[in-house]
């Protein structure tokens, strides 16, 4: 008599389900790990692209015109619509906003001699009924142009010649203050002086994606750095570091 071995016993079913469940847990962990890696890559790319594009835009102007002065600024005094700037009570984002004003050594026939590099949060959209801003995002922006001035000398309207804007990831650390490092050597030495502007940007794990701008300073051109490192407003702080001749350094730093 033949013994028929058809079908599956309950023990086999239980064991196979158990093995499949163990394998599925392991696979799920792997899947989450791969997805997190991809998200990390995307954030890193976003930082690098924003950093590179802003650096390229500003360096073009620095190389074309040279720099005359650098100081911190208040983003509410630049050309931005104040209602678009994110400023919720109870948050300290405003303290971390950054604004640098660069005045270029443009010839007299070129009026667009001022550039602003800004990092702030802005509303990407508005509620049609309540006109409340929504979806705030971090943004880094460079704009170059000039202000129209009325008869009293007050700035009226900003005329932008160049504008570059990039969104930054939400995982942002802007706790470090911007700084300018430059050299000032006497005319008798053969070398030009150099200048470096640093706008520190870090991600949530502390990796730096600073905006670094370098340019040489001709001995014939005056340069002033307005130091506000002790300002009571955190967003208004800028540190100026000068190396070289002490007299030339002290005359080039304007401390406020």
């Amino acid at each position: 008599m033949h013994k028929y071995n058809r079908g599956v016993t309950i023990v086999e079913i239980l064991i196979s389900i158990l093995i499949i469940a163990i394998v599925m847990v392991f696979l799920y962990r792997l899947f989450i790990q791969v997805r997190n890696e991809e998200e990390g890559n995307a954030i890193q790319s976003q930082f690098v692209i924003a950093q590179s594009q802003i650096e390229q835009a500003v360096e073009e102007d620095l190389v074309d015109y040279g720099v005359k002065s650098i100081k911190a600024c208040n983003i509410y005094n630049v050309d931005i619509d104040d209602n678009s700037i994110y400023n919720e009570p109870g948050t300290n984002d405003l303290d971390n906003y950054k604004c640098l004003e660069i005045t270029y050594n443009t010839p007299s026939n070129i009026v667009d001699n001022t550039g602003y590099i800004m990092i702030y949060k802005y509303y990407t959209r508005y509620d049609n009924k309540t006109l409340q801003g929504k979806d705030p995002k971090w943004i880094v922006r460079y704009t170059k142009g000039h202000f129209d001035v009325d008869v009293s000398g007050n700035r009226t309207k900003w005329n932008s010649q160049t504008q570059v804007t990039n969104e930054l990831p939400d995982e942002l650390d802007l706790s470090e203050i911007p700084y300018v490092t430059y050299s000032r050597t006497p005319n008798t030495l053969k070398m030009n002086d150099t200048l470096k502007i640093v706008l520190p940007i870090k991600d949530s794990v502390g990796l730096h994606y600073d905006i670094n701008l370098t340019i040489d300073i001709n001995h014939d051109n005056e340069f002033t750095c307005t130091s506000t490192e002790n300002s009571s407003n955190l967003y208004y702080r800028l540190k100026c570091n000068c190396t070289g001749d002490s007299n030339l350094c002290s005359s080039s730093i304007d401390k406020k």
Partner: protein
Amino acid sequence: MRKKNGFVLVETAIVVSVLSITLLMLYSSYSHILRVTRSRNTYVHTDNIYSTYLVKKQLEKYNGSVSNFVVSNSSICKLYSDSGISEYVCDIANATSEQITVPLAPLEVDKIYYLSPAEILNLIESSKENMLMHLDATTIDYVKSLGNTSGKSDTGSTYKIMIVKYKKQYSDGSYEILHSSMEV
């Protein structure tokens, strides 16, 4: 005699599981390779390109050309050679001449190398190691990443390039080493 046609459920489940694990592990490796490739592509940051151009301008202003600078300033630049191939290593960070260090200080230049990666990487192994040992570890990685065709023209003749090593200090005491190179 017992006939066996087809597969039992357990065999099928095990096969499917093994295939799935293998495919997922391959994909995660692929993702890792992509990430490493991207980080190598951004190894030279945009700002370093401008800084390296400024370094070249400064050295040319000081001594006419980068080659004149490395040859004329033996107190700053050390010459190493093997099998007819030479390289210069200039320790800018520890140089005593303020005429050099002060203007380059804002750029955070640590060292300047004047060499041809093609010449060095195409040496026999012992000579290559002898030449590479004078470079910092990060610089060795950078020279190898440039490859053995860097510093070599289409006609086969070799020329030296300037490699600048930057040491960026951060406020928390940490620092980052970066390299950038330029034909001079």
